[in-house]
C-alpha cells in the first residue's frame, strides 16, 4: 500500500520541470526537490552507517550506479556526512529515528520510506532490505528508468540527463506480500534474472541451488533457506535396510525412497522420531548466519504409502472419523507428521522459519491444527489461469484458500502465472485479482511465481526461456510490481512499462498487446500452466485472424522506435512473434473426425474383437506432444477407434509399447495388466496407484463452456473429472487387456451425463493423450488444442 504525502504535487512538479535546467543553490528548501547532478557533476553524496549491512551497502552501490548511468555524475559513498554543501542522501534506519510513525507502519516488513528535510534525504525501512527497495522506488519515481528484463544488452532503459533532481521524495510503501519470489524453472540459477528480480522488489532466493550459486544469489537476497526432503534424510546411512518400516509400502512390500516414487510412511512414529534426529543433525551441520528458513519437501508425486496403518481412518481432534476417501485424509496424515518435526525443530531453533509446500495431496487444508510455527505455502495447482481464483471455474481453490486462511497465521502462495509465458499470456489481470483476494484473507506472508530465467539458447525453437521474456517481460514486470503493491492497477502498470521500455513506439506495442488481450480474455477456453505456446499462437493469433493486425502494429512500432535499448527489445518481440506464428502455421488445421452412429455399438463396447470396430472413426496415429508435424515411432504409436449410439461414446484405444526399451522406460513385456485389482475410483494418480501407463482423453460439449477428462491405467483404475474437479463422476466404464503387440482399453462414456445431446448438438471436441504422444500434438487440459469430433446422426 502506498502513502505519499506530497506525491501528487511532486508528480505535477516533476512534469513541469522536465527538460528545465534547474539553477540555484543545491539543497535550498525554496527549490523543489533535491539536486543530485548538474551538468553531469555530482551534487550529492550518499551516507551509510559505519557498518552497513549487505542490503544497505548494496543499496548505496545501486543508487550510485544508476545515478551515474543516467547523469554521468559519480556520487561518493561515505560512512559519515562530509562538510561539502551538497545533497546528503542518508541510507538506513540509523539516521531516521525521528520518523517513528513510518518505522512503526513498516514494522515486520521490508517496506520503505523516503523523507526529505531541505538538503537531507532519508531512505530507510524497518528492515535493512527496505533501504534497497527505497532506492528502487526513488529511481522509479524520479527518473524514467525501467528494469524491463534481465537481458544485459537491452534490459534496462532510461534517458540520459546531465541535470538530475529528485522531486518525489516524500512517500512510504508497505508491501502487500512480505516475501516475494520469482522461482526460476527449467534453469534454476541465472544471476541476471536474480538481479532483475531484486531490482523489482523480490526478496526471496528460492531453493534450487548448487553450492557455488549460493554466494552469488546471496548478494541479491541476503538471506537463505535450506531444504530437506523427508525421504532423503531418512535414507541416510542405509537405513532402509535396517528400518524398512519407515518407508512407503506398495504392492506388497516397502520401497526405498525415490523423489518420484512412493513416499515415506507418514504414520510411522519411530520413523518420525528418527527423522527429527536426522533433521537436527543436518541443521547442526548446515546452518549458517544467513539461513533464516528450513523448508521440508516431499516428492513430486501422489504415490503414497498404502500400509494398513496409513489406510486406517483418522480420529480427528473433534472426534470425527476421517476416512481414506476424504480429500483431507492424506493431508491430515501429512501435517500430523510434519507437526511433530516442526515442534522439535522450533524448540531447537526458536528463530528459524519452518515451512512446507501445500502441494498435491498436501494442498487440502487438513483436519488437524497446524503447528503455530509452521509456514504453509499453498499451491493452488492446477487451476484455470484465465479466471481469478474466486470465479466458479476455480471454486475448489477459492474454498481451499479460505480454509487455509483460517488454518494458520503464516500462509503463503506458490503460483504458476509465469509458466507457458513463451506465449504472451496477459496473465497479470488474473494475478492482480488473485493477490487482492488472498490479501483480503490475510494471506500475505509469501508469494512465489514460477518464472523462466532470461537465458537464451542458440536454437530459436529451443529458446523457451529468453523467448518468454521477449514477449512476456511486461507481465513479469507487472506481477513483480503487484507482489510489492497489489493496490496498483495492472492496466496502468502495463502502460507504464510500454512507455518506459518502448518509448516512441509504445502506442503501437500497446496496440499489439491489446489485440492479444482481447483475443485471450474474450474466449472461454481455460488456460493452464502447461499450455503449449505454438498451439496458443495457432488458436489466439492465427485462427482468430489477428496475425496481420498484430504484425502491422509491430512494423509501425519499428518505424518509430529510437532508443537503442528499446529497439533491441522490440526486435526480440518481433522475432519471437514471427517464430510463434511461423511454427503455429505448420500445425495442421484442426482435424475433424467423423464418429459413426451404430445402434448396436454397445456390443463393441463389450468386445475388443468385435467386427463393429472396423466401422468406427479412426485416429490412426498420435504425434509427439507439441509437435504436430512429427510422427511417433511405430512402437510408441496408437490407433484409436470411436463409435457412438447417441447414448454412449465408445472408444477403443490400442496403444503400442516398445518390446525392448531402456531400463526404466515403459515397455510392453514388463507391463502388468491386472483388471481385478479394484482400485478406488479417481485414484489413477493417487495413493500408490500411479503406474505411469495411463490413457486419458478429454471431451468438450458443443458450446465448449467446459470439458471433461477420462482416464484409465493398465490395471483398469479409472479417473474422471470436470476440468480438474475429480468430484465429478459420470459413471463411465473401461476395460483393459494386454495383447502380444499392445495394451488396449475400451471406454464407454455416457454422453448425456456430459450435457451432450446428439439431437441438439453433435459437433463436440476432444483430445487423446497417451504415454508418448497425443492427437495432433495437443496437450492435456489445453482446450485450444482440442480437435473436432462430429458425431454422425445416422
Amino acid at each position, binding site marked *: 500500500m502506498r502513502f505519499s504525502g506530497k506525491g501528487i504535487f511532486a508528480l505535477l512538479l516533476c512534469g513541469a520541470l522536465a527538460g528545465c535546467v534547474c539553477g540555484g543553490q543545491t539543497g535550498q528548501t525554496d527549490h523543489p526537490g533535491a539536486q543530485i547532478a548538474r551538468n553531469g557533476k555530482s551534487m550529492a553524496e550518499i551516507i*551509510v552507517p*559505519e*557498518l*552497513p549491512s549487505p542490503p544497505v*551497502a548494496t543499496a*548505496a*552501490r545501486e543508487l*550510485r*550506479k544508476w545515478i551515474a548511468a543516467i547523469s554521468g555524475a559519480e556520487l*561518493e*559513498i*561515505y*560512512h*559519515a556526512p*562530509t562538510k561539502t554543501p551538497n545533497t546528503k542522501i542518508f541510507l538506513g534506519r540509523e539516521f531516521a529515528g525521528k520518523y517513528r510513525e513510518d518505522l512503526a507502519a513498516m514494522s515486520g516488513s521490508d517496506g520503505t520510506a523516503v523523507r526529505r528535510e531541505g538538503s537531507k534525504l532519508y531512505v530507510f525501512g524497518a528492515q535493512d532490505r527496505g533501504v534497497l527497495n527505497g532506492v528502487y522506488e526513488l529511481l522509479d519515481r524520479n527518473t524514467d528508468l525501467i528494469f524491463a528484463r534481465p537481458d*544485459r544488452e537491452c534490459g534496462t532503459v532510461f534517458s540520459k540527463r546531465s541535470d538530475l533532481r529528485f522531486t518525489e521524495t516524500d512517500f512510504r510503501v508497505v508491501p502487500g506480500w512480505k516475501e516475494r519470489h520469482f522461482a526460476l524453472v527449467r534453469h534454476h540459477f541465472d*544471476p*541476471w534474472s536474480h*538481479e532483475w528480480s531484486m531490482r523489482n522488489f523480490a526478496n526471496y532466493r528460492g531453493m534450487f541451488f*548448487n*553450492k*557455488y*550459486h*549460493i*554466494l*552469488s544469489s546471496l*548478494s541479491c537476497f541476503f538471506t*537463505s533457506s*535450506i531444504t530437506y526432503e523427508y525421504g532423503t534424510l531418512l535414507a541416510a546411512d542405509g537405513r532402509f535396510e535396517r528400518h524398512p518400516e519407515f518407508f512407503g509400502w506398495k504392492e506388497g512390500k516397502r520401497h526405498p525412497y525415490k523423489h518420484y516414487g512412493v513416499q515415506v510412511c507418514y504414520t510411522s512414529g519411530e520413523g518420525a522420531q528418527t527423522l527429527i534426529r536426522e533433521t537436527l543433525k543436518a541443521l547442526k*551441520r*548446515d*546452518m*549458517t*548466519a544467513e*539461513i533464516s528458513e528450513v523448508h521440508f519437501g516431499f516428492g513430486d508425486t501422489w504415490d503414497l504409502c498404502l500400509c494398513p496403518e496409513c489406510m486406517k481412518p483418522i480420529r480427528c481432534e473433534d472426534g470425527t472419523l476421517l476416512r481414506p476417501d476424504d480429500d483431507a485424509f492424506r493431508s491430515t496424515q501429512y501435517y500430523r507428521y510434519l507437526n511433530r518435526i516442526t515442534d522439535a525443530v522450533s524448540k531447537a531453533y526458536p528463530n528459524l522459519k519452518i515451512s512446507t509446500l501445500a502441494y498435491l495431496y498436501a494442498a487440502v487444508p487438513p483436519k488437524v491444527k497446524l503447528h503455530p510455527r509452521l509456514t504453509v505455502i499453498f499451491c493452488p495447482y492446477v487451476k484455470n489461469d484465465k479466471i481469478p481464483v474466486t470465479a466458479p471455474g476455480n471454486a475448489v481453490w477459492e474454498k481451499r484458500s479460505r480454509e487455509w486462511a483460517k488454518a494458520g497465521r503464516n500462509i503463503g502462495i506458490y503460483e504458476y502465472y509465469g509458466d507457458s509465458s513463451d506465449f504472451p499470456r496477459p496473465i497479470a489481470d488474473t494475478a492482480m485479482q488473485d493477490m487482492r483476494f488472498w490479501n483480503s484473507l490475510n494471506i500475505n506472508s509469501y508469494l512465489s511465481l514460477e518464472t523462466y530465467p532470461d537465458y537464451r539458447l542458440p536454437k530459436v525453437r529451443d529458446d523457451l526461456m529468453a523467448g518468454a521474456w521477449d514477449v512476456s517481460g511486461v507481465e513479469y514486470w507487472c506481477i513483480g510490481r503487484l507482489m510489492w503493491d497489489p493496490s496498483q492497477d495492472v492496466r496502468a502498470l502495463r502502460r507504464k512499462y510500454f512507455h518506459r521500455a518502448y518509448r516512441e513506439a509504445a502506442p503501437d506495442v500497446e496496440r499489439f498487446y491489446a489485440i492479444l488481450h482481447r483475443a485471450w480474455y474474450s474466449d472461454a477456453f481455460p488456460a493452464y500452466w502447461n499450455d503449449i505456446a505454438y498451439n496458443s499462437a495457432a488458436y489466439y493469433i492465427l485462427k482468430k485472424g489477428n496475425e496481420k493486425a498484430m504484425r502491422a502494429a509491430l512494423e509501425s512500432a519499428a518505424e518509430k522506435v529510437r532508443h537503442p535499448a528499446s529497439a533491441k527489445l522490440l526486435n526480440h518481440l518481433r522475432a519471437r512473434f514471427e517464430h510463434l506464428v511461423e511454427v503455429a502455421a505448420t500445425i495442421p488445421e484442426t482435424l475433424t473426425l467423423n464418429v459413426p452412429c451404430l445402434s448396436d455399438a454397445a456390443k463393441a463396447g463389450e468386445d475388443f474383437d468385435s467386427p463393429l470396430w472396423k466401422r468406427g472413426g479412426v485416429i490412426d496415429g498420435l504425434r509427439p506432444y507439441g509437435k504436430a508435424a512429427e510422427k511417433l515411432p511405430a512402437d510408441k504409436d496408437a490407433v484409436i477407434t470411436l463409435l457412438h449410439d447417441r447414448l454412449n461414446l465408445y472408444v477403443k484405444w490400442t496403444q503400442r509399447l516398445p518390446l525392448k526399451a531402456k531400463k526404466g522406460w515403459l515397455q510392453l513385456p514388463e507391463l502388468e495388466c491386472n483388471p481385478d485389482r479394484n482400485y478406488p475410483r479417481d485414484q489413477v494418480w493417487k495413493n500408490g496407484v500411479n503406474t505411469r501407463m495411463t490413457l486419458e482423453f478429454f471431451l468438450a460439449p458443443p458450446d465448449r463452456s467446459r470439458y471433461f477428462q477420462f482416464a484409465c491405467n493398465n490395471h483398469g483404475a479409472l479417473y474422471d473429472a470436470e476440468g480438474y474437479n475429480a468430484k465429478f463422476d459420470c459413471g463411465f466404464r473401461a476395460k483393459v487387456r494386454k495383447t502380444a503387440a499392445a495394451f488396449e482399453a475400451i471406454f464407454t462414456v455416457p454422453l448425456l451425463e456430459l450435457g451432450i445431446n446428439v439431437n441438439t448438438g453433435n459437433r463436440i471436441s476432444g483430445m487423446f493423450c497417451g504415454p508418448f504422444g497425443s492427437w495432433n500434438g495437443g496437450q492435456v487440459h489445453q482446450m485450444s488444442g482440442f480437435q473436432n469430433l462430429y458425431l454422425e446422426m445416422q
Partner: protein
Amino acid sequence: MKKIFSLAAFLAGTLLSAADFSAEVRPDVKYRVVFTAPAPPEWQIRFTDADGNIPLGGILSSSGERYRGTEKNTYVREFYTPHFAKKATLRTKDKVENVRFEAVGNSKYLNLNPEFRLGSENYSGYARTTQSVIRKGADGNYLEVSDSRYGMTLTDPVPVTPGRTYRVSLRREGPGNPKKNIGVYIRFLDKTGNVLDNQRDYWKQSFTFYANWKNDFPASKQFTAPPSAAFLECLLLDGKFAAFYLTEENKRGQAR
C-alpha cells in the same frame, strides 16, 4: 615456503586504552596491524581519504577470536589498504598495548595468508568462512572447507589491474585421495565492490584440483582481469588446503 617478509613503514605505539592509534598508509598495499590485549578485543581499522573522510569500504571491523596471533595475547590482522586510503586508524573498545602497523613487503603472493602461517585462529585474508576451519597439521596449518551444502570460504578481494593475467594454484593437505574434487571459483569486482557484469557466470571461471591428483600436483590456472576490474576474489570449496596461492602471471617464477 619462505617466511613472509615484513618491512617498510614500521610504526609502533604503546599502551593505548580504548583509544585511537593512527598511521599514514599507502593505498592498495598489504599491511598488518599487531597488538597485544589481555582479553579478546573488538576493534576497527578506519581508513580516511585525503580529505579526512571515510568512503564506503573504509572500515574493517574485527573481533579477537578471528585474528588471534601465534603468541599469547597477541592479535594480528593482515589486510589490503583501500584505494583511497591515506591514513589508517586503529580504534578499540578495550585496552590494548604495543600497537604497530607495518607494511607486508615483498610477499611472493598477491593473496593474504596463503599458507595460514598467521595461526590456526587467524583468518586474515579470508573474508567469509562458513563451515570452514583452519587446523594444525603435521606440516603446518591448513584450511578445511566442509563439503556440506553451505561449506565455503571466500578470500578477501585482491587488487588487480585490467588486462593483466593472474594464476591460481594450491596444495592439498594430507596424503591419499579424498572423495571430492577441490573447487575454486573466481570473479572480478569493480572498484566499488560490484561484481562485474561479465563475471556473473561464476561457475564458468573455475579451477578444479581433482581428487585423484597427488596433493602437491603442480596444477594451476590463469585468468585475465577484464576491463574495469579492480579486485579478484576466490571461492574455495570442498577440501583441505595446505596453501592457496594467487600470483600475477609474469611474477610466477618468483612465486614457486
